[in-house]
């Protein structure tokens, strides 16, 4: 047997509710941490950082954020791009207004500001449900993008409305701006992701997480057993937006370095992140990681295969890439509607039973 839990006994409730109750899982998790923090940084090149790892880390944060709202609390949102923009513009204003304050604080504050905005746009969720709410969140998406495009104060009155991240350092090493070494970008985002994923895990396994899930699964019943729907939904909007705001801040400050709101934080972004969580698995933190990895890696991979490997013209490759991506999304949904995370769980269940089929 490759994977088993036999022989593991829990002697306390705390032990029983830990994140990785099975020893094997715990091992994998620790290996991943060691590789992520102690090995990868030494091998980080500009290409890998900018094309794969940094976007992956940042999208994973955003995906966890959206997963809290959509996967855990059941409120489908298409305003993610707009909320990321709030984070980006908040961090930009903070960075340029208070250059002496640490960038870490700016990023966290940007998350806080986004949380406040998120709560504001979450208010209608009390009355509006399902797809109606999803479409309603588009109001946030379009309004926020318009706002940042229209009000020059947000982009410090620059001629084109573009914002550019100034260089900021942490422990003497640049983490934003063009001179940032690849490993620093990577580590900076990785630390945020780790901390946020850990917080997300804590929240979702505790009281508040249960409130969210109760609302998701059956809001009326949840209310009747004593969950205040307003508080639960708004807290989900707040926490989710906090995560998404941080993702937006990092996306602009660390990853892109310069951004234009409509282009970097348009509706496409909202959809992309929604894809991530659905493909990864709604209501699963692991799923957020898996979904982000999948959707960041897949296009890069396809491009390399089709253009680099098969030598197709880049436009044809791009079109076919779209078809493949679309096809894969459908394929995955048919194969396992509950995402990569569920696929993984089924696999584990099979492994546990292995070599017996049932």
């Amino acid at each position: 047997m490759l994977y088993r839990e036999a022989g593991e006994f829990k002697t306390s409730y705390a032990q029983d509710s830990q994140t990785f109750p099975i020893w094997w899982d715990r091992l994998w998790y620790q290996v991943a941490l060691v590789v992520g923090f102690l090995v990868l940084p030494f091998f980080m090149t500009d290409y890998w950082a900018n094309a794969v790892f940094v976007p992956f880390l940042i999208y994973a944060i955003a995906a966890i954020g959206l997963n809290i709202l959509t996967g855990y609390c059941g409120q489908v949102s298409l305003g993610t791009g707009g909320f990321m923009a709030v984070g980006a513009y908040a961090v930009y204003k903070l960075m340029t207004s208070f250059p002496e304050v640490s960038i870490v604080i700016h990023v966290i504050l940007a998350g806080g500001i986004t949380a406040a905005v998120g709560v504001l746009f979450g208010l209608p969720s009390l009355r509006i449900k399902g797809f109606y709410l999803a479409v309603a969140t588009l109001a946030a998406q379009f309004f926020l993008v318009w706002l940042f495009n229209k009000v020059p104060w947000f982009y410090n009155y620059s001629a084109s409305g573009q914002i550019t991240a100034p260089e900021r350092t942490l422990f003497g090493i640049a983490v934003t701006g063009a001179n940032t070494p690849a490993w620093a970008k990577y580590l900076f985002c990785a630390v945020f992701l780790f901390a946020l994923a850990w917080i997300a895990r804590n929240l979702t396994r505790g009281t508040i997480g249960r409130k969210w899930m109760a609302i998701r699964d059956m809001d009326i019943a949840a209310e009747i057993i004593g969950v205040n729907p307003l508080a639960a939904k708004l807290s989900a909007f707040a926490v989710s937006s906090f995560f998404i705001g941080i993702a937006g801040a990092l996306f602009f400050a660390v990853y892109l370095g310069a951004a234009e709101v409509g282009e970097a934080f348009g509706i496409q972004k909202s959809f992309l992140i929604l894809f991530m969580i659905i493909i990864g698995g709604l209501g699963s933190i692991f799923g957020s990681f898996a979904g982000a990895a999948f959707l960041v890696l897949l296009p890069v991979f396809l491009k390399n295969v089709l253009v680099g490997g098969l030598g197709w013209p880049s436009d044809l490759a791009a079109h076919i890439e779209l078809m493949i991506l679309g096809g894969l999304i459908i394929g995955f949904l048919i194969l396992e509607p509950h995402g990569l995370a569920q696929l993984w769980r089924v696999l584990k269940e099979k492994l546990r039973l292995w070599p017996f089929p049932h």
Partner: protein
Amino acid sequence: MFDERPPAATETLLEVNNIEVIYNHVILVLKGVSLHVPKGGITALLGGNGAGKTTTLKAISNLLQSERGEVTKGSILYRGERVQDLDPATLVRRGVIQVMEGRHCFEHLTVEENLLTGAYTRTDGRAAIMDDLEMVYTYFPRLRERRKSQAGYTSGGEQQMVAMGRALMSRPEMILLDEPSMGLAPQLVEQIFEIVRAVNEGEGVTFLLAEQNTNVALRYAHTGYILESGRVVMEGSAQELRENPDVKEFYLGMSDKGRKSFRDVRSYRRRKRWLA
């Protein structure tokens, strides 16, 4: 009330041979179930929660696929033909219709529209359908009163009637009836079973009904099967079953001294013999 009736016919209409059903590729639910449903009879499928009654019915009506379940072994023959690979619509056209557990009304359609959807596969003209609608309304007067309300807003019992009526509207040869008594007032339970009997006798419709309410079911059925954890543990004519001491104790709630009070069952019971 226990009028003893001989089984109406001996020809087998539906035959289920040793089927196995697996959900989600991993959960094995039916572990070899075989049934013979005689034409023109009422066959009861009894058993506790999770025994696999619903699963059996769905396997027959081919509704399993949509629940990620599949029949992995065995065969299902209807009038001697394999029907496993047909889609549910074809099966309805051939005369087998299921009334699902939990009613499953079309919430946004009115009661009358719900009933009319039952006639979807029929091609015998509007007049005939209207006649049958009238018939259903005669069976269930309550539905006539609520014909214009959205089904989603009707009470549980009303919904059960809608579901039954809807099935009748398809003029079936065989009805798979899943827990018709669930949540119904006693009078209505009687009424529904009376209707089952009336339809069975009057129109010659064969019934395979899954029931928890063993008491009523065995009163109306001709034959019965008892299912436990995905296996048939007992079968026989309704009368045989009714008189079996185990059935009496576990399914009818009777002890030697007649019906036990629910207040007295608090102290402990022995386990079923066949589960040993």
